[in-house]
Structure formats: structure tokens, C-alpha cells
């Protein structure tokens, strides 16, 4: 071996002698973004797994919570005025408080997603081009109304009272649905949710896919993070966006190949442990009186919201 060692490996550069180069290295946005996303997924996963067990909702049976979620999401979608949506929002806020969730983190996520999937999606409806009504914020004045195919564009374009109301209502609906979903997710460990869905007769195939996806997301984000570190260890200079894209394309192929292999291995491992086609669960705990009381209370409050 010693005789075959390449001569360049025997070179010993002087310590600390290096060519001074000015300037900073920028990591390509696409690469940094993917690594960041993987980090966020992993962090969320860990936080979910470790969700506090001492709050009000944490002590309630998962079946009650899943039914509560379904019932209240339906109520949120049925309400046609803003006030009941605000009441529901306040009710969820109280539950978040009682469940001792981290308020800042919780609402940061809810409002972030609510802004994109609620407000931004609905915002065009605020204009009189889409929602007719009384203009409260005139923006553009055309010389004459325009007619294009089935569309009619009025001469005065602006924000209408009815439009604003509609946008606010839709945004509140999205925010309420999101906060209800996060509330149940953050107070219920994942296996409990699967168990509750099984009891509620959700098909086994769906549950198997859900469970495997849940585990795989974590493995996937860990692989992405490791790949980023491996690239970083050999990154000597700034990589261009083209190089970053090429690297990502290559790594996507790698992940695809690895996922396929893992899929086969996991399936074989399941078969090896006697899997047929149904999920068998160990003793599902009995509902306690407390669970029933809370279930009835939620039902009562839900009906109240339906009536107002």
C-alpha cells in the first residue's frame, strides 16, 4: 500500500498559508431552500411527537377530538355571516389556552397559512369586477365599460363593501378550519389519530398509506439534510444556480431510487411479520365519563353555533 500512495498525497502545505480572496460565498437559494424545508419538516415532526400532555384536550379521547374536528369544520363551512365565525375563532382560542399550546407558534402558523390560502386566494373577489356592490374604495376609472366574452368590466373599478365582507368571511373560514385542525393535531399523538380513524371505519388501505407516509416524511427530510451536509463538505467555492439545479436533479433521482427500494423493504418486513391486509390494533381504551361529558359539551356548543 505504502508504495502505491500517490506522491501528491505526501505534499504538506505550510500551516495557515492560503490565498486571500475577498468576497463572500452565497449558497444558491434553491439548495438552501430545500435544506431549510427539510429542517422545518423535521422540527415540526419532533414537536408534534413531543406535544405537551398536560393540557385540557390532551386528556380527551382521540375519537372525541376527531369527531369534534369534523363537526366544527362542517359548522365553519356552513356559516354565512362573519360574527359566528369570530365566535368560533374565539372558542378555538380558549381551547388553545386550556390545552397549554405555545400560543405564538400556533397562531404564527395559522395566520401564515390563512394569509396564503384564505386572504390571497379570495382577495380578487373584493373588486367589483367579480363581486357587484357598493364601491367603498375606487381604484381605476376607465373611459367606458368593457365587454369581453362573458366578462363585463365596469368603467369604475374598485373594492366593494360586499367584496370585502366576502373576503373576510372566507379568510375567517380558512383560519378557523386551520386552527381547529392544528388544535387537534398538536394535542393528539399520531398513533392515537390513526386508532381513532380506524374505529371510525376509515378504510385500512388509507390508514396504512397515512402511517407509512408519516414515518417516511421524517426519513426523507433526514436524507435531504444529510445530502446537503455531504455536498457542503466538498463545496469549496460558490456554486452557480445551474450547478445547484443539476445537483438537485441528480439527488431527486437518488431519492426516488432509494424510496422505491425502501418501499419494497418495508413491505417485505411487514409481510415477514404476518401482515395480510388489515390493520390490527391492540386494546382500544374505553371511553371514560369525562370523554363523554366533553363530547356532549362540544356537541351542545356546536349546535349553538349552528343556531346563531
Amino acid at each position, binding site marked *: *500500500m*505504502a508504495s*502505491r*500512495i*500517490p*506522491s*501528491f*498525497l*505526501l*505534499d*504538506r*502545505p505550510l*500551516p*495557515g498559508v*492560503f*490565498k*486571500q*480572496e*475577498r*468576497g*463572500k*460565498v*452565497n449558497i444558491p437559494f434553491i439548495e438552501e431552500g430545500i435544506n431549510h424545508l427539510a429542517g422545518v419538516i*423535521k*422540527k415540526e415532526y*419532533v*414537536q408534534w411527537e*413531543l406535544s405537551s400532555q398536560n393540557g385540557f384536550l390532551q386528556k380527551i379521547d382521540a375519537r372525541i377530538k376527531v369527531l369534534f374536528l369534523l363537526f366544527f369544520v362542517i359548522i365553519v363551512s356552513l356559516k354565512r355571516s362573519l360574527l359566528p365565525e369570530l365566535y368560533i375563532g374565539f372558542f378555538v382560542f380558549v381551547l388553545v389556552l386550556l390545552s397549554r399550546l405555545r400560543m405564538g407558534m400556533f397562531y404564527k402558523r395559522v395566520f401564515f397559512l390563512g394569509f396564503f390560502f384564505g386572504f390571497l386566494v379570495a382577495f380578487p373577489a373584493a373588486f367589483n369586477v367579480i363581486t357587484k356592490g357598493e364601491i367603498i374604495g375606487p381604484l381605476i376609472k376607465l373611459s367606458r365599460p368593457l365587454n369581453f366574452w362573458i366578462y363585463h368590466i365596469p368603467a369604475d373599478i374598485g373594492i366593494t363593501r360586499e367584496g370585502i365582507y366576502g373576503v373576510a368571511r372566507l379568510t375567517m373560514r380558512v383560519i378557523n378550519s386551520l386552527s381547529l385542525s392544528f388544535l387537534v393535531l398538536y394535542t393528539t399523538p399520531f398513533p392515537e389519530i390513526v386508532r381513532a380513524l380506524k374505529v371510525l371505519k376509515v378504510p385500512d388501505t388509507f390508514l396504512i398509506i397515512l402511517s407509512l407516509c408519516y414515518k417516511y416524511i421524517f426519513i426523507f427530510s433526514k*436524507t435531504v439534510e*444529510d*445530502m446537503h*451536509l*455531504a*455536498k*457542503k*463538505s*466538498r*463545496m*469549496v*467555492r*460558490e456554486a452557480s444556480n445551474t450547478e445547484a439545479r443539476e*445537483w438537485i436533479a*441528480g*439527488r431527486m433521482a*437518488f431519492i426516488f*431510487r*432509494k424510496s422505491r427500494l425502501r418501499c419494497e423493504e418495508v413491505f417485505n418486513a411487514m409481510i415477514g411479520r404476518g401482515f395480510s391486509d388489515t390493520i390490527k390494533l391492540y386494546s382500544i381504551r374505553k371511553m371514560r365519563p369525562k370523554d363523554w361529558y366533553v363530547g356532549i359539551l362540544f356537541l351542545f356548543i356546536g349546535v349553538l353555533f349552528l343556531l346563531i
Partner: protein
Amino acid sequence: MIKLERVSYAYHDKFPAVSDVSLEINRGDKVAIIGANGCGKSTLLQIMGGLRYPSKGRFLFGGAEVSERSLREKGFLKLFRKSVGYVFQDSDIQLFSPTVLDELLYGPLQLDIGEEEAMARTLEVMQMLNIEHLKDRPSHMLSGGEKKKVAIGSILTMNPQVLLLDEPTNGLDPKTQSFLMELIFTLNEAGKTLIIGTHDLSLVEELQTNVAVLSEEHRLERMGEAKEILRDEDLLLKVNLIHEHIHRHDQVTHKHIHSHYLFHRH
């Protein structure tokens, strides 16, 4: 050359991986970081590889602090990455180029070494590692041992002065393991600084390295020579690298300290 000053690191700000570790490694040293699973060996190596940054404390390389900020400076990044090579435990993660040849060429080309010299380096390293016949093969069509050789080769072509090896013998057959040992010896004799993260005590015994022992509380429990550390059964028992077990010899049942490599004394 490498200095860790009271370095700590925690994952997700929740799970400590390295706690208050201070360590100094000189040029040409051969050091093994040993400890049970989950004690923080890989994290410590990744900190020394400039891949993770300490949550507390400082990591100095050649007297200069290595941080996210300093590694954004072009000159320092080049010096550091050229000087320190990291061989990952999972070779699959490390190999990302289309073929073995591209993989070995990647580093030198990054360092702006001329194409001719880069190719000459690559061919020499392939010859040394006995992987010339694999040069046009994609990395996913290699065996575990071949992948490990290519991963090491991809670092050697950059001619780093410090080599960080994370569990280098894991999952390798005995022949590849002994090849790797010989390679580690040769590289160290050639003046390279070698830092190996492992829980394989036979590797430590064979390489006769300096040893840093990490406890399950992620602290540096002791630093010393291999002979001295491996003789200290109480220490190895404390950090869970050896264990007590009960077994039978004919009609006699007895209990003794046991490691799969070093201790099986009665």
C-alpha cells in the same frame, strides 16, 4: 491544529448531542472518538468538519475560528475545505456525481486544479484503491465496500491534511476492513491527521490511536492513549462500550465483563 473550546450542540434546541467538550488535536495525530450509540460522535465530527456549528463554545482550525460566518468568506472556505475532508458513515449520501470518475474529479475541479492534474490525481487514487475498473460505473451500481472506497477516494483527490472518518468500518467485510486499516496507517504515515468516530474497540486497538471517550451524557469523559484507555475496564463499562453478561461453560454459570473484541477473560 484543531481546537474545541467548551463546545456544545443540541438538535432542535431540545436534544443535547455534545455537551461542553474541549479537545485539542495536533498535526499528524491519529485520534479515535469513541462512545456508545447516540453519545454524539458523529455530531462532534460534523462540527470539526465545519458542517454544523456549535450552539455554545468555539471551534478553531489553525488558530482561526470556524463559524457559519467565517465559512462564507471565499478564502477561508477554500482553505478549510481543502484542508479537511469528511467521509460520511453512509456512502450513498456522499456520492452524488454520475460516475465514479466524476466523483473523484469533483473535488480537485472545485479547487481549480487544472484538468490534467485533476485527472492524474484521480487515476493515481483509483490505482491505490483498486477501483480503476469501476471508473465509468454509476455509484448506485457498486457494492458497500466499493462505495466506501469511492467515498474515501473522492476526498483523497482533494489531498486534505485532516481526514474525518465516521464509523469507517461499519458494514464492511473483513477484507475491506483490513484494506481500510492499512490505508489509514499509510495516510497517517504520510503525515495526514486522522480523526475517526467509532464504537469499534478492535479498530482502536489495531490503530493504536489517541482516544477521546464520550459519555452517554455527551461529555468528554477522558482523553488518553489507546493502551491506557482500553485497559480501563471501569471507564469502558461506565460509557457502555463493554458490558457484563452471564453465560455457561459446561455446568458452570458465571458473570464477567464482555466486549466482542477485547475482553473475554474468565
